[in-house]
């Protein structure tokens, strides 16, 4: 297409002008995606703990001071729950609280303290393998996932809770931690679930003691309310403010560039090119600039993600996603917005295009 050739000719011969626009836009796109990537280190980690873990390990917690929930009652309840097809196994356990700290915020969650036999069942259910150290054999022995180790800075032999020491390190898809109980009151029932996002409320409704339930459904609610709803508004605000600032700068810069093109566009009009052609020329110059910017941004994003992963995520056992559809959508939306806002100086300049005779008269 002739208009594309014209546009490419301008970009080829005005590298400085194009570079200014390209670098601005590509840095902005890189910022958007890398911000999403950094946040994924938070979202993905929280999602794993709040949702994925809760889908597989459901906690029914009774009040330890409630005398209506005796060990026998809990055991009977666990036996009954074990019969349900949505439950792979059920066991009465104690718990300890462990904290995970992603890039933003921190989250406390429960980990089972039980017998060695139950620990084996949990490991099998969670597809966890011991990669370092020893399997718990004595009271107070803890095994912990390598990601959680890295996040908390633990090593073999470290004390997680008074009396509880790390004897082994696991490899799994979850932030697992479990150990042999010796003094914690066992007022929880752990259900090993084989259902995703299954509401266990109905199943636990007729338990004879007051209890609280933490399953995949409550985990999702908690994730949405505590994590997403608290971080999302800030992210959106940062994106919006940066976009507005960039758009204003781009409009000013493009206006300056277009003013330099005024005589050129008047020449085109005089020698018979239509206003439509001139508009398409300006549009294609913008589109080609955007394409170049996307190419540069792609390389910068790869570099950025690698650097962030090396510096932040890998060393702290955080989960992250490399492919971020939301960020890509955000980038596309931003590009469309910038393209739209850049129509203003173009339209204004097209309106001012005259034929050469008028330019000569003005001179």
């Amino acid at each position, binding site marked *: 297409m002739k208009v594309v050739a*014209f546009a490419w000719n301008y970009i080829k011969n005005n590298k400085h002008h194009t570079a200014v626009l390209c670098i601005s836009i590509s840095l902005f796109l890189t910022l958007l995606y890398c911000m999403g990537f950094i946040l994924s280190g938070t979202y993905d980690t929280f999602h794993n703990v709040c949702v994925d873990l809760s889908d597989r390990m459901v906690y029914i917690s009774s009040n330890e001071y409630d005398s209506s929930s005796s060990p026998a009652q809990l055991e009977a309840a666990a036996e009954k729950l074990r019969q349900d097809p949505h439950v792979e196994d059920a066991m009465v356990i104690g718990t300890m609280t462990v904290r995970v700290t992603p890039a933003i915020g921190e989250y406390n969650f429960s980990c089972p303290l039980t017998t060695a036999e139950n620990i084996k069942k949990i490991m099998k259910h969670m597809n966890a393998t011991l990669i370092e150290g020893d399997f718990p054999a004595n009271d107070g022995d803890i095994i912990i996932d390598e990601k959680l180790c890295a996040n908390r800075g633990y090593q073999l032999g470290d004390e997680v809770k008074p009396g509880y020491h790390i004897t082994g390190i696991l490899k799994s898809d979850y932030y697992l931690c479990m150990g042999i109980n010796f003094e914690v009151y066992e007022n929880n029932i752990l259900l090993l679930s084989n259902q995703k996002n299954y509401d266990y409320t109905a199943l636990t409704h007729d338990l004879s003691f007051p209890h609280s339930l933490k399953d995949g459904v409550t985990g999702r609610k908690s994730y949405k309310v505590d994590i997403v709803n608290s971080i999302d508004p800030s992210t959106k605000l940062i994106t919006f403010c940066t976009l507005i600032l960039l758009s204003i700068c781009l409009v000013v810069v493009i206006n300056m560039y277009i003013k330099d093109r005024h005589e050129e566009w008047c020449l085109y009009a005089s020698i018979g090119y239509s206003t439509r052609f001139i508009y398409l020329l300006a549009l294609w110059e913008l589109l080609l600039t955007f394409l170049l910017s996307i190419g540069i941004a792609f390389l910068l994003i790869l570099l950025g993600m690698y650097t962030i992963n090396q510096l932040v995520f890998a060393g702290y056992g955080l989960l992250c996603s490399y492919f971020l559809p939301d960020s890509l959508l955000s980038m596309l939306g931003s590009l469309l917005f910038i393209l739209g806002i850049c129509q203003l100086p173009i339209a204004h300049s097209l309106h001012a295009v005259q034929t050469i005779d008028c330019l000569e008269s003005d001179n």
Partner: protein
Amino acid sequence: MFDISQLTMIYDMDKEDKIYAINSVDLKLPDHGLVGFMGPSGSGKSSFMYCLSTLKTPTSGEIQYNSHSFSQLSRSEQELLRRKEFGFVFQRHFLIPYMSALDNVIVAATDKKEIAISRGIQLLEDFGLKKSDMKKRPGKLSGGQRQRVAIARALINCPNVLFADEPTASLDHTSAFVVMDILKEYAKQHLVLVITHDRSILKDADRIIEIWDGKIIHDQLISVGSKEES
């Protein structure tokens, strides 16, 4: 080629003192030849030429080009006419500063790129530009070279009519005569209309028309044993 009748161009229509840039001009122009337009500043020469080239719309009157009336042409048809049938050489060359000389020539081309490049190179060579000069940007060329590039751009589509508004105004005498030689050569088979203040460059013109206050006061056909005045 051109049949102009009662052509009038008025500026400041709303004001009491209207300005008649062109005042009821009747004229016929042939298919080929070098026609010079002379007159003082503000006499209406440029307005007349711009009306003929569809760059301006007259207030009244009719212009027929090859029996087609301009008033019946749509805007896109006028643009097409300028693209394919007309060529323009302006007083200032209006070369695009970031394009090479050759690119400036082919910017006006309507043919395919390969054909346009070939013809552009041929034109520039005919006008005395070296291959190394063709790759230079206008800023690196002399005034005479720039004007020759502008003429090459005007001729890239072999237009039937070439409009040249003060084509030698910013040139020295030597370059001016070189440019006029090119135009004279082209005028052998096409119509070339030249506006100028300098009578000396019209020494080879076939016809000289003098315009004063928007009216043709003198129309001199320069050929053996024949003169025509209006």
